[in-house]
């Protein structure tokens, strides 16, 4: 469902400018740092995003998808236990 080229849509292109919120910058930085540390690469990030249920993918904000993917990947790699992040909130 990430394969969007040519997908029919009636949604307008919203051209409102958004400065990134702190948490969005942080999420981006976490991916960058995980990449630099050889823990998770960009292809794994994308694949993790693609594993989202379709309706969640379409509803989620951009960096929410990244957070989903980071968590998915880190659980797969045994770095996070399932539910460990949830317990922290």
């Amino acid at each position, binding site marked *: 469902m990430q*394969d969007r*080229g*040519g997908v029919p849509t009636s949604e307008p292109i919203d051209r409102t400018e958004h400065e990134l919120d702190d948490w969005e910058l942080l999420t981006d930085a976490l991916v960058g740092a995980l990449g630099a540390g050889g823990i998770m*690469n960009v*292809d*794994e990030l*994308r*694949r993790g995003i*693609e594993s989202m249920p379709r309706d969640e993918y379409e509803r989620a904000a951009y960096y929410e998808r990244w957070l989903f993917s980071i968590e998915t990947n880190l659980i797969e*790699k045994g770095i996070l236990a399932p539910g460990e992040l949830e317990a922290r909130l």
Partner: protein
Amino acid sequence: MRFALGQQVRVSDRPHAGHCRTPGYVKGKTGTVERVHGSFTNPETRAYGADGLPEQPLYGVVFAQRDVWPVYAGPAGDRVVVDVYEHWLEKA
């Protein structure tokens, strides 16, 4: 490198499970190699934690928009260029 600049190539429309960077809208379509980008790690394997080796040649393939879309509203000269890995291309 299997393909050369200016060569006509067809994008495979074989089914694929898992991470793929060949967009569906060019699968089965024929275009022309207009750039040979060199070789890069294979995202399809790297996406599952492998090293992505051996590197795969990557080509910039240009398509006529009218060949890609069943109904394309623009002129015949319009083009779309997609970067496609060698293992997704066949001689046309």
